[in-house]
């Protein structure tokens, strides 16, 4: 905002080899690992304390909608690819192509949420709310928190696609770094789903 110049905002630090922002996002992801790690451990603890899982009998894969979740997995993986393409477009200096791929990433994120909405509303329709039993408590809490992370990603990516683009004219390298950092976060959110899908739906 004024004359204070923060070193290594854009250029990598000679020793660590990365600029400040990228270092920061990796630290943030480390804390996110601890957040979801705690949730996964709690899931293991609660599940192993129950005689049956799900408590009402049957199999997770029968109670939850595996085809829809598979679709969602494909959607998220595709969105990770479009995210990389958006970053690569920046690297190659093409803002229109960045807009295209970033737009696709955001659209796919919305597809994921819409599919999730149908899954949720079907569960609520059956009376399977979080208070029904701990199977649904775990399911809704973990996928819900993941869903919030998707929403966060949409906000960040939406900013980069909209008002954030102004930075491109001033400092394309800085903008590219921001896209890369948003991408790292987005891949992490994707990765969490890759763990959630089998452990909630299939096992």
């Amino acid at each position, binding site marked *: *905002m*004024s*004359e*204070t*110049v*923060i*070193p*290594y905002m854009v250029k990598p*630090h000679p020793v*660590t080899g990365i600029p*400040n*922002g990228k*270092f*920061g996002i990796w*630290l*943030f992801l*480390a*804390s*996110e690992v*601890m*957040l*979801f*790690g*705690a*949730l996964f451990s*709690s899931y293991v*603890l*609660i599940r192993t*304390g*129950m005689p049956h899982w799900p*408590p009402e009998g049957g199999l997770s894969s029968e109670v939850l909608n595996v085809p829809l979740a598979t679709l969602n997995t494909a959607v998220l993986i595709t969105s990770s690819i479009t995210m990389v393409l958006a970053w690569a477009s920046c690297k190659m200096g093409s803002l229109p192509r960045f807009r295209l791929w970033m737009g696709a990433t955001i659209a796919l994120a919305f597809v994921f949420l819409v599919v999730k909405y149908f899954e949720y509303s079907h569960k609520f329709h059956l009376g399977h*709310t*979080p*208070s*029904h*039993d*701990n199977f*649904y*408590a775990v399911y*809704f*809490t973990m996928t819900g*928190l993941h869903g919030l992370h998707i929403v966060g990603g949409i906000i960040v990516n939406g900013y980069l696609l909209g008002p954030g683009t102004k930075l491109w004219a001033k400092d394309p390298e800085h903008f590219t770094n921001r896209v890369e950092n948003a991408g790292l976060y987005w891949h992490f959110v994707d990765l969490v789903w890759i763990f959630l899908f089998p452990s909630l739906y299939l096992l």
Partner: protein
Amino acid sequence: MSVKQHTAATGNGHGHGNRDHGHHELPFWRKYIFSVDHKVIGIQYAVTALVFLFFGFSLMMMMRWQLAYPGQPLPLIGNLLGETAMPGGVMAPEFYNQLGAMHGTIMVFMGVVPLAVGGFGNFVVPLQIGAPDMAFPRLNMASYWVFLPGCIAMVASFFLPGGAAQSGWTSYPPLADIAPTGQTMWLFAMVLIITSSLLGSINFIVTIVQMRAKGLSFWRLPFFVHAQLVTAFLLLLAFPPLEAASVMQIMDRVAGTSFFLPTGLVVSGEPLKVAGGGNPLLWQHLFWFLAHPEVYVLILPAMGIVAEVIANNTRKPLWGYRLLVYSVVSLGFMSFVVWAHHMFMTGMGTTMSTFFQITTMIISIPSVVILTCFIMSLYGGNIRFTTPMLFATAFLPMFAIGGLTGLPLGLTASDIYLHDTFYVIGHFHYVVAPGTLFALFAGVYYWYPKATGRQLNEKLGKVHFWLSFVAINFVFMPMFFQGMAGLSRRLYDPTVYAHGRGVQALNVLISWGAWGLGLAQLFFVVNFFLSLKKGARVAENPWNATTLEWAAPSPPGHGNFITEPVVYREPYEYSVPGKSNDYSPQFRAEG
């Protein structure tokens, strides 16, 4: 509060060669309220934390009345607090529980940590590493402005129906799951405070790793910066599990899930209508996975401050600087594997207990090494007993008492007897109150001239120190005896038990000690405000210190240093033989 910062910073403009000289001035609200300058944010954190420390202490001073004179109406303010909290001026048991829970929460999460990390960390670390600001100034601002709403929500919960959280600062379920609405507010406030410290810790690590001045290698960093770096890692990695646990407890309370509610729970003779199948121990594991590293978040910055003050006032290099750094790093690692020593009494099994008992004994080794290094640093020194030095010296025996009394709690056999008694209260308060808080006071007296350009009054400072030092020992020393007599820590009226009546006289003594301690703090409050206007003006380096923050003007302008600092030597080169000065600053090429 913003008014105070305004005053704190009006000392700013006069005379000193500030860097923003000639640049356009920022509007008031950008400079002092939504500021991105690490020094302003540090002062915001510090002042907020000092206010909450006093508030949290006031809650305890009220509880001490009930403990000393159970069932008697509280004089003066008893009738002001409403009929629900204080029917007829006598404290209701529910209100007593609220005060206890909020005292712990406020002191730890809104007092000590924000002062040690948010205040001193933000203000001092960029200066000590020769950086113009933190790596992410706007993130830094966001961290404070997430923290403050969290604090306000926490305090506002007193006005909810049913009052504030009353399940202790540990919020153990199943009781916390079925407590009144205040608990939900507590959880939401905690999520905000956790988010704030997360943003802060990312900022600290990146700043310390990426933005050190030229020549400032890791082995030339002041010990305070090492301590803050380890602290930041603890905050970064230990807080998220509590965030996860808070989310689950919110789900239990709001969405009716049963994460922490076992099957077959009966409340007031009625079976609780929940699905069940949960595990209350799960909360304890997640909570202590945060809260034990949290203990080190409280103590490590304090050790850092003590190191700075001791080196400066003994006019000697710190004894065993590298040993100190190795110890602080191993403390950081070990603090992640000792959490279940808070849970020996839960029946989690002897194998688990043995493991955590061993790690607990191991973690005491680096703590003892650090304390020994400090004591060795005193040996043979020509000590200047300034106010910061008095506080720093007092830290040593106080922390030693706190640490040593912890050993019987870390051993399963003796913990069976001492668990949840006043002995525990005495133990951890010796670590945090005359330990950490004294170190933080040392820091306030030591760095106040840097922040304001004026010295705190030494006479008032010494009165503050001696009164606090005497009073605080009257508060916490008798607790060991009460605990060994078996007095439980959460009793509303200790005289209902015969073994409590035996040590009730001590409760009266403790309470008068606590109120005396409260009075002693008034000397500090007066000094703090008086010196803003009347304190002696100082130049860059009033303490003849060696570290980089003393190269910047007092107070430093925007961007901190007038010329970019370069570091030539290790941090504590005091009394180097053959030199004319007894200190050789890091930032001067010639000693």
